[in-house]
């Protein structure tokens, strides 16, 4: 719940309200700490709440994320602020922190919004829906998605024409164009950085044709097509709305690829592609699914069994790096690759191609800290100063890292990492209260 009665003192500031930040906030609050949880997005839940199902359990992602989100929203010791960022974080001599918190205007009073969506109906502006990864449109007055938390409207002021239609339509008068940026200072004892990741932009590999060939989509776009809150209620290829029957996955798009500056493996793409392949087999029983891969990294608990299950369901795995994709007149795509198992350069036609995009660290985190330096590693993830003994510690005493902010990882590893961060943060808070900490 958004809390306007802003308490200025907290035990912990958690930056990022995805699954890692959320878990860390809950762990801390459950043992009596007051937490300020902030996210720059309009909703909490991060990337996970947008997913279809999760590997290898095939649980519906929304269904297992919403209880956490709901628990966070209701927790009496957690204050959640969306559209909010922290900056100018200063560590004081006694080991505690000060931070400037900035909330961007939503132009809607969240506590009064009932989520009735009448403003959406009234708004005449259509723009691409970023929450559906551009698959469909949305209005300039909109609710991010049906299970967003808070489930309240927001005005996209950059695209808004200020026509006033939404204000007139709103039955509770919660739309308020006079809202401005809010800034205030907080004091806290510890900071957890759970700023997550961004997806690789496949236009950086022009030979795959993303952005030029309509039927080349990203794995996140496929994820949305398969999610319970999916836009089309089935899987469609963008060029003509045909239901595809021969889908290719290009793995390691933007991972393990020095030419785009990412030499490392993204750790999740093999498994999410395998999962999507299984879901597609269910959604489109007649479709052929082929995964073009370098190595299948099915390393976690239950993963290798899940990979074997996909193979036995008939998902085809072809070892070979796709060199180039070309488009035919009918919108079908030709993949050119070296089929390693035969040693031959081969071309194969598919009617839809999914690029399994990798993950990249979010930028700009180091700039949040003023008098201390938050070190990054050679891959621009937050550097873990003592990975073997205290994986959540960073170069700043009292600042801990959770989830993908420190390295690519899947959901369970993010949960474990958040557990470690919260455990160490709780201890840091305790140390501050019993003795002076050297910083």
């Amino acid at each position, binding site marked *: 719940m958004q809390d306007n009665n802003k308490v200025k003192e907290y035990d912990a500031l958690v930056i990022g309200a995805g699954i890692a930040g959320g878990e860390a906030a809950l762990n801390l609050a459950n043992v009596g700490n007051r937490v300020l949880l902030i996210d720059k997005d309009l909703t909490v839940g991060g990337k996970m709440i947008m997913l279809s199902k999760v590997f290898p359990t095939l*649980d*519906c992602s929304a*269904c297992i994320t919403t209880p956490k989100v*709901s628990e966070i929203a209701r927790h009496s010791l957690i204050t959640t602020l969306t559209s909010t960022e922290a900056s100018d974080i200063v560590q004081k001599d006694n080991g505690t922190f000060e931070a400037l918190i900035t909330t961007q205007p939503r132009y809607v009073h969240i506590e009064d919004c009932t989520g009735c969506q009448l403003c959406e109906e009234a708004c005449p502006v259509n723009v691409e829906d970023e929450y559906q990864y551009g698959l469909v449109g949305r209005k300039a007055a909109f609710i991010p998605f049906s299970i967003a938390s808070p489930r309240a409207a927001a005005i996209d002021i950059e695209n808004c024409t200020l026509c006033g239609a939404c204000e007139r339509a709103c039955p509770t008068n919660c739309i308020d164009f006079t809202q401005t940026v809010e800034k205030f200072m907080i004091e806290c004892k510890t900071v957890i950085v759970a700023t997550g990741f961004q997806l690789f932009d496949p236009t950086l590999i022009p030979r795959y044709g993303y952005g030029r060939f309509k039927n080349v989509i990203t794995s996140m776009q496929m994820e949305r097509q398969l*999610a319970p809150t999916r836009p089309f209620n089935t899987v469609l290829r963008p060029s003509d709305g045909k239901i595809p029957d021969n889908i290719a996955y290009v793995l390691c798009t933007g991972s393990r690829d020095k030419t785009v500056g990412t030499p490392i493996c993204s750790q999740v793409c093999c498994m999410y592609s395998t999962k999507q392949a299984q879901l597609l087999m269910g959604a489109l029983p007649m479709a052929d699914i082929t995964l073009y891969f370098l190595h299948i990294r099915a390393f*976690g608990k239950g993963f290798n069994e899940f990979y074997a299950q996909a193979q036995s369901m008939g998902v085809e795995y072809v070892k070979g790096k796709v060199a180039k994709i070309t488009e035919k007149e009918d919108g079908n795509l030709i993949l050119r690759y070296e089929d390693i198992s035969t040693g031959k350069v081969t071309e194969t036609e598919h009617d839809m191609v999914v690029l399994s995009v990798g993950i990249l660290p979010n930028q700009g985190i180091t700039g949040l800290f003023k008098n201390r330096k938050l070190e990054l590693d050679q891959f621009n993830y937050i550097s873990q100063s003592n990975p073997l003994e205290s994986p959540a510690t960073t170069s700043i005493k009292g600042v801990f890292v959770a989830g993908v902010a420190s390295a690519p990882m899947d959901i*369970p590893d993010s949960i474990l990492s958040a557990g470690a961060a919260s455990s160490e943060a709780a201890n840091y808070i305790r140390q501050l209260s019993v003795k002076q900490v050297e910083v």
Partner: protein
Amino acid sequence: MKSKIGVYICHCGGNISDYVDVNKVRESVKEIQGVEISIDTMFACADSSQKQIAEDIANKKLDALVVASCSPKLHYPTFSAVAERGGLNKYNYVHANIREQVSWAHSDNKEGATEKAIKVVKSAIARVKESVPLEPIEVKAQKSIAVLGAGVAGMRAAKELADLGIQVYLIEREHFVGGRISQLDFLCGADITGKELVTQLYEKIHKHPNVTLFTGAEVIEKGGSIGNFKVKVKITPRYIKDECNPEQLQKAIDVCPVEVEDDFNFNITKRKAIYRNYDSEYPHFPTIDSKNCTRCGECEKVCSSIDFTQKEEIIDLTVGSILAATGFDPYQPKENEFGWGIENVVTLPQFRRIINMCDNKLIYKGKEIKDIAYIYCVGSRQVEGDNKYCSRYCCTATLYTSILTHKKYKGIHSFHFNRGIRTYGKQEVIYDEASRLGDIFLQSYEYDPPVVTKVNGKTNVKIEDLLTGGKEIEVNADLVVLVTGMEPRNDCSIGDVLKIPKGRDRFYNEIHMKLRPVETVIDGVTIAGACQGPKNIMESMNSALSAAAKSYSIVNKGELALEPIIAKVDKDTCVWCGKCAEACPFDAITKVNANGKEIAEINASVCKGCGMCLPVCESDSIDMDGFTNTEIESMINVLAEN
């Protein structure tokens, strides 16, 4: 009997409504007597829907609630909490599962699915009508935690909990701490050795006022329940006095005439019956291996610290939570498996010990080693055999070992017979480095593993190589290293004592693989490190700290509210036949004397509400709060209706 019932039917965003006609379900229950409102909703679990349900309860003065949605395993706690927030007693909430048990199970038959969903919802309504409010059982929670296993995960968790002010009993089965990591002399991507890591952690716990370390100790019995576990710990004697003389002890080791295979070095060396595994090992004095000691008395003659009068001890502890970090065993190859049994075929753990013992030249059994063949996935991803899982750490560990051999010795050639290298995440750089050093990678087809044979004194590895389009390639190796994976502990008796369930891979199972990876179905028992599944050190540390966080949250308040779903005895009709006590798996039932009559009594804080006592009761004197016979019969009546 409840008469203002709210019924909510969830679409689950298509998971249910794609196969079940949710509108029809709603319509067919709305006229049932006692149903005040019936509403369908896209996601009942979404925060906005939860708010709506809670408001409806308050505004419409509902006296009971049914939500038809997914498995109660997922959302029973969610909606019972909603009921409470709306002002209901949470036991006046009944959960109907129309996803796992209906829409997903009958996706081929929409009509049938809808019909079944209607029955399931009707039976939930029938049950909720008969539901009675219950109050949680409040118990005190001990602010102490037993950590089982003093490997790096266990020690790390112990340190964290002790710093948080919790009394920690750290219980290690061996006579030394450090577990598997103390056997490692180099760690991938770290500038310290495994032994140094163990030392660092030991120094943080051994003088910590909140940590009590027991070595040679094992939990042999567990009673009680969350907040108040009673554990019995068996401590085997070390036969060395606490005040000991190091010089004399070294003499004692020297004079011991018994030599046995040293399992710390994976049987590639021998040790005495009085021994320590390595010089800087902790606790810092040796032990006597009572299985192999002949009691010849030679050691006693030179050392006053030896004490054969020490006896086995049993101690009782009461703890609020138990954190199990009992680790793994390396896979032990079977006879002839990839040439196991040939003299220059070793396992990866053995090879790492060999590297540690050879300074300038890599020598094994008197021969210098230059050409090394690594065979991956031994005991993991088995085509034949039960271990279908990937052991996660071994690709990186092997490549790092190979890199190290290049740095330490001259003229090494490494051949990696792999099944697809899995250096996930940042570990990719290790693969890259090994490739740049000139290591050769050969990959076998899934069902066609490499073959190891001994030909003319050379050990030959033959493979049909996928990377060269199926060419047959042979390597004559000086040494073949079998990259053995992780297995659950061969002796998993502690899991049986704690009753932690195991998965198909035989590792201990968490409650939920994705979101609750360190909690178990046994309330108050958490799991950490490789006993839950293969992990590297950093991953084990994350899991140890997470388990510490969860165990801490159980005990930190000093009190707990337990579920009141327990069995109750009707004092008037019970005639004590003892069958219920026999059936009870938790020893919650005892015979008592009530007004001159022998009857059964149930200990509320021990009873788990499993229901085993109910069907064996001949006089039908036991009933279960929350699942009363009246409730269950009302459900059966509805389900049996035509």
